[in-house]
């Protein structure tokens, strides 16, 4: 059934179709409609879940972790300050190897108070063991939430599905909402099949004091699971395509084959960049685009395969790692390190705190990079008004 819905409601439908069993969430702009619609689903019986109306995001994540440890399929959604408040427990979810799914609406961190989009909230949580997916459209948001459960439950890691504040969260687009029966064919029915769970018939202690003799290997295995997740995410996306007719890949190259310059984007800037690629092609410039959908684990192999086709790579970061540069740019440089042929990498920062990113901005970025042999600094700031 096609319906015109916001990105936030796309998240709610995804969590409902995935048959979430325990939901614990706390309201924050611009995430609120996600939990409101899920509350309605629970109240009307459209979703058979326990919804714990917690008193904070820290508790939301703690409740999901504890419920997941019993084998229940768990879901939460948050944004910005809420995600930051969860931080301690985000570590716990990954360390405990529990496939909690979280939708984060990318919103800038205070102060000053901002409700508008940038990626600093989710990128501040990139090193914890969570998988991260950045979405371009409302359809992709819904589909990724459903996929996230399957991927997370296979590799036993939590998954964060990320959408831009307002540009997706509050913008309506046509979304194909699949029949429950199709989703059930794709995603096994809960409870989740965990190797160990909280069970009085098979009692264990979870998360006890762990000496250096054991802790190191537990972390080693998280990284192994992250490595494995690259292939799992591809396979799950394929299965999804076979059953539901849509797939996204972990990255999406667009007109990259003969490109001399490749733009690298994530989130909704991708949609704008796609238009610019087409218009640049009309002008005769060989520009391509690489959309990064899965950022943790980093699709290193794909980056190394695709990006060196061009002489120039232009990374667009709607975030800043203070004291260094844009996070995507850093990671792409690191992924390409050691290749015999190195493209020149331009790292642009743009759109922080939800400042609009227009097609004209991206055209000017492409124009600058095309005409400039080498960037004169590690960060190329776009549109700073001083």
């Amino acid at each position, binding site marked *: 059934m096609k319906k015109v819905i916001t990105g936030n409601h796309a998240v709610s439908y995804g969590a409902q179709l995935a048959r979430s*069993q*325990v939901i*614990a969430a706390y309201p924050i702009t611009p995430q609120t409609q996600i939990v409101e619609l899920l509350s309605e689903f629970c109240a009307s019986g459209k979703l*058979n*879940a*326990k919804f*714990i*109306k*917690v*008193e*904070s995001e*820290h*508790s939301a994540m*703690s*409740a*999901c*972790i*504890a*419920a*997941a*440890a*019993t*084998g*229940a399929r*768990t879901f939460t959604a948050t944004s910005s300050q809420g995600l930051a408040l969860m931080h*301690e*427990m985000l570590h*716990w979810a990954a360390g405990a190897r529990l496939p909690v799914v979280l939708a984060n609406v990318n919103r800038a961190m205070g102060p000053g108070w901002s409700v508008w989009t940038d990626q600093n909230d989710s990128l501040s949580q990139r090193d914890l063991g969570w998988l991260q997916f950045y979405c371009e459209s409302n359809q992709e948001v819904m589909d990724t939430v459903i996929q996230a459960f399957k991927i997370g439950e296979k590799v036993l890691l939590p998954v964060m599905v990320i959408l831009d504040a307002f540009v997706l969260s509050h913008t309506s687009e046509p979304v194909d909402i699949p029949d429950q029966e199709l989703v059930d064919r794709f995603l096994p029915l809960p*409870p989740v099949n965990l190797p160990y769970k*909280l*069970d*009085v018939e098979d*009692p*264990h*202690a*979870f*998360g*006890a*004091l*762990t*000496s250096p003799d*054991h802790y190191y290997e537990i972390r080693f295995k998280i990284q192994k699971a992250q490595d494995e997740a690259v292939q799992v995410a591809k396979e799950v996306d394929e299965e999804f395509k076979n059953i539901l007719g849509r797939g996204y890949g972990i990255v999406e190259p667009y007109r990259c084959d003969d490109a001399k310059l490749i733009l690298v984007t994530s989130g909704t800037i991708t949609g704008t960049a796609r238009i610019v690629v087409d218009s640049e092609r009309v002008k005769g410039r060989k520009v391509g685009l690489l959309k990064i959908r899965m950022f943790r684990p980093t699709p290193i192999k794909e980056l190394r395969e695709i990006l060196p086709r061009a002489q120039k790579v232009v990374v667009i970061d709607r975030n800043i790692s203070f004291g260094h540069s844009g996070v995507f740019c850093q990671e792409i440089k690191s992924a390409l390190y050691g290749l015999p042929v190195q493209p020149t990498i331009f790292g642009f920062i743009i759109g922080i705190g939800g400042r609009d990113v227009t097609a004209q901005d991206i055209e000017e970025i492409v124009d600058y990079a095309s005409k400039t042999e080498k960037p004169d600094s590690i960060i190329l700031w776009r549109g700073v008004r001083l």
Partner: protein
Amino acid sequence: MKFEIPQKEYMYPGHVACPGCGGAYSMRMALKALGERTIIVIPACCWSIIDGPFPLHACKPPVFHTAFETAAIAASGIKAGLDIQGKTDITVMSWAGDGGTLDIGIQALSGAAERNDDFIYVCYDNEAYMNTGIQRSSATPWGAWTTTTPAETPKSEPKKNITEIMIAHRIPYAATTTLAYPDDMIRKFKKAKSIKGTKFIHIFAPCPTGWKMAPDLMVKICRLAVDSNVFPLYECEYGIHYTINHIPKKPIPVEEYLKPQGRFSHLTKAMIEHIQKSVNFEWELLKQRAGVS
């Protein structure tokens, strides 16, 4: 009246508590009352160590270790996860220290109590942060020495009354208990198990290490605390119906309770008098609430 403590053990030797740990013995009693269809939640506290380091585990029921401030919400999450899977006969018990309850965990505890989530929350109160080396908590009594309230400037604030805070949430059951009265303790745990909703049990749990006293005095100190009215045994249903479970015929002076504990050794006569007065005052308040004259 004869009372028998159930023989069956659900906590085994090999735990790593200090000698005379009130928190360890209290768990042993609690589990005797609750049985093995129980899941235990333990936030950061001495009990994160006592149950044993990985892969050891001293309690028979499953133990879920969780972050310091999450004892209550983890229980809510476990209960929800079990309920949605149809496993409705399992008792979930949070077992947290005074720091995890009165300080860092009070927000999540208040949230769970307001929702009346179905679990037993136990605060084993040793009146300081013992795991990290005897720092003051808001449960540390007035006048006590801790490593952050040195004897020159001992704790200058009275103990926070957590049981009354929980009672104010109008939860179905809140009670105080201690090991010197094992019949009282076992009865209260059984009662808590039989009630749906949030149950709060406040255990007075001496820490001989942190209180600078002989480990073999542990049970005696519990008895002195009750018999001096420092820690009255009472329970309250639905935030309204109070029962005082033990009314000392002639309360002993608080000095007898304070004397064996090194953490009070710096107290002057005037300070002891001050403590006596506030104990008397609190006792009268409690009697009023319970309608006892």
